[in-house]
């Protein structure tokens, strides 16, 4: 008796799932899939990314779609867990049968999905920061944000300018933080900076005072660089001020969001970080080619989503636009042709800078689009 019940339960479950999957076979939309860290420690990156994707897909569809075809967007929340991200990537590829994937908030989520998209040969534009995503070049994988290496270079160039040469590094145990740490150590050697302390903290830590107490006791350090993303660095910054550490503090581009300033409150004052032009749009010179694009994006974001747009929102916008442009140029959703067209992107002006891709560069951004900003009176101030 219970057996029969079990059978029918299983069958009903399977059937309903099948229906759910099958019901969506209307028209012939362009299928764009995404997995983002809408919850978890990277939520302040993932949440705006999701909203931006939804907003722009909606706008494109209202304007008649891409070559008359509407876009159907499928977004899953990986909660910041790479294994979940891999599961959702599999679901996007096998069940939702997407034409292109724009997503992967974190480096870990991206790297978990890479083998899957490579095997299934689906173009994948990642929104995550680490350089490992595009180095070595993987045929089907692209990314929109600046790399951690560029961030390290930018920070150390700024240090040199200020006459500082001894750095205390505090990096997160996430993929982004780990890659950032490795790049920082490498870049430091080339740029003549000595790393005098090398501590790590957990992405979900609610108290980083022990590590900071050690850094405070280190008499050699002249500046501190925090490599992490999301709420962790905000916690670090708060604890930093709590311990009354006087050294200049740098963050990475993983916190370039008003959300960071909001969370850290007054503690965020005087924090310096490299960021895309987006956050300082109004301070850019009129000659900057990005200015118009960024201003337009900011206005739309503020009108439709609310709050200040973060650079992460910008990464999602860039990713979506790169995909849409490539599909348009490819004249359809043939995956190989879309991939080729993404790789041929030249002179695309996005929120992150001017993108010039090539078979050897799947990001296509130069250091010139990366600005050093400082937080002053609760907002971004362009340093250079």
């Amino acid at each position, binding site marked *: 008796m219970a057996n029969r019940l079990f059978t029918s339960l299983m069958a009903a479950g399977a059937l309903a799932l099948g229906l759910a999957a099958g019901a969506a076979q209307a028209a012939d939309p362009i299928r764009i899939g995404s997995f983002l860290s809408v919850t978890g420690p990277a939520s302040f990156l993932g949440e705006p990314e999701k909203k931006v994707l939804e907003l722009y897909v909606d706008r494109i569809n209202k304007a008649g779609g891409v070559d008359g075809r509407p876009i159907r967007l499928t977004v899953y929340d990986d909660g910041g867990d790479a294994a979940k991200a891999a599961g959702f990537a599999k679901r996007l590829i096998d069940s939702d049968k997407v034409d292109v994937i724009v997503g992967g908030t974190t480096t870990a989520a991206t790297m978990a999905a890479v083998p899957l998209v490579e095997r299934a040969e689906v173009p994948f534009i990642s929104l995550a920061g680490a350089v490992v995503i595009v180095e070595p070049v993987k045929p089907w994988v692209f990314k929109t944000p600046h790399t951690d290496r560029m961030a390290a270079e930018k920070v150390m160039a700024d240090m040199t300018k200020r006459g500082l040469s001894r750095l205390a590094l505090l990096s997160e*145990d996430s993929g982004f933080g780990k890659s950032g740490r490795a790049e920082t150590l490498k870049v430091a050697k080339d740029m003549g900076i000595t790393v005098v302390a090398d501590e790590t903290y957990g992405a979900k830590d*609610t108290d980083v005072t*022990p590590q900071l107490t050690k850094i405070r006791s280190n008499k050699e350090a002249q500046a501190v660089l925090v490599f992490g993303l999301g709420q962790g660095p905000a916690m670090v910054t708060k604890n930093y001020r709590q311990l009354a550490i006087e050294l200049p503090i740098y963050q990475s581009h993983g916190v370039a969001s008003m959300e960071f300033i909001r*969370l850290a409150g007054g503690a965020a004052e005087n924090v310096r970080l490299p960021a895309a032009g987006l956050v300082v749009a109004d301070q850019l010179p009129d000659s900057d080619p990005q200015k118009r694009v960024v201003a337009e994006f900011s206005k739309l974001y503020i009108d439709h989503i609310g709050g200040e747009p973060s650079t992460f929102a910008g990464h999602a916008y860039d990713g979506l636009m790169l995909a849409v442009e490539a599909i348009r140029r490819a004249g359809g959703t043939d995956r190989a042709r879309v991939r080729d067209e993404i790789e041929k992107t030249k002179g695309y002006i996005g929120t992150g800078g001017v993108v010039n891709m090539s078979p050897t560069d799947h990001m296509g951004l130069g250091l010139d689009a990366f600005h050093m900003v400082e937080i002053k009176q609760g907002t971004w101030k362009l340093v250079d």
Partner: protein
Amino acid sequence: MFAEFLQYLLSGITIGAIYALAGLGFSIIYNASHVINFAQGEFIMIGGMSAATLTAAGVPLPLAMLFGLAAAMLGGVLIAKFTIERARNASVVTLIIITIGASIFLRGLAEVVWGKEFHRLAAFSGDDPIAVMGAAVLPQSLWVLGVALVLIAATGFFFNRTLAGKAMLATSHNRLAAQLVGINVRGVVLVAFALSAALGAVGGAVVAPITFSYTEMGIMLGLKGFTAAVLGGLGNGAGAVVGGLLVGIAEALGAGYISSAYKDAIAFVIILLVLMFLPNGLFGKRGTERV
């Protein structure tokens, strides 16, 4: 050297005070109903989230805290009324799953009401650290300690000096006898949940400026509270308070001198060591099984 130690000690006592409040909450509910309430951490979350989001919306802090308190107490009473009371005779594991279900539900509800992002609550009296012999203390830490002290003293007064409190203690010692002398034992369970929820909610509100508020903030705090309660001996309120402080201090010292990455493991290592030698916790009743 000493400044460093003091710094660790102070942060340990601060977080330990929150564990103590959570542990006390576990103990009160355990005494009244022999249930381990895995939703205890969610009461902390409700307190923290209410305070953070309502003040952000312009509500004065005391009012926001009061609202959080009321919301958590209502949640606690509803859990007691609609689940625990109905599942009196279920096994230990079943009751654990019920409270875990309640915890997932409350967390889900919080996600819908407040969203999944992190919220900041301004410190009650500014962010300027106070220097104490080379260590820096946030004024908020003093708030946490002060509030925890008041709550713990009030709880102690309630159980030892008031009739209602004594009735609850009596019920925990002998449910049947309590029933016979006219104590409303069902009421006792409801009051226990309300009281634990109140402790959690206030704790959550005072700690939120230190930890941020988010829907998952209660998970680890709740587990540490459970550790505190077991360490002190289940059902022993004073034990739970001592347990909470011990866990907090050990954690902070461990993070400072041993490994910050293993900070969260320290509480559990301690509890395992203690249980290996004292199967009923530090201050738990020892007794031989009656056959």
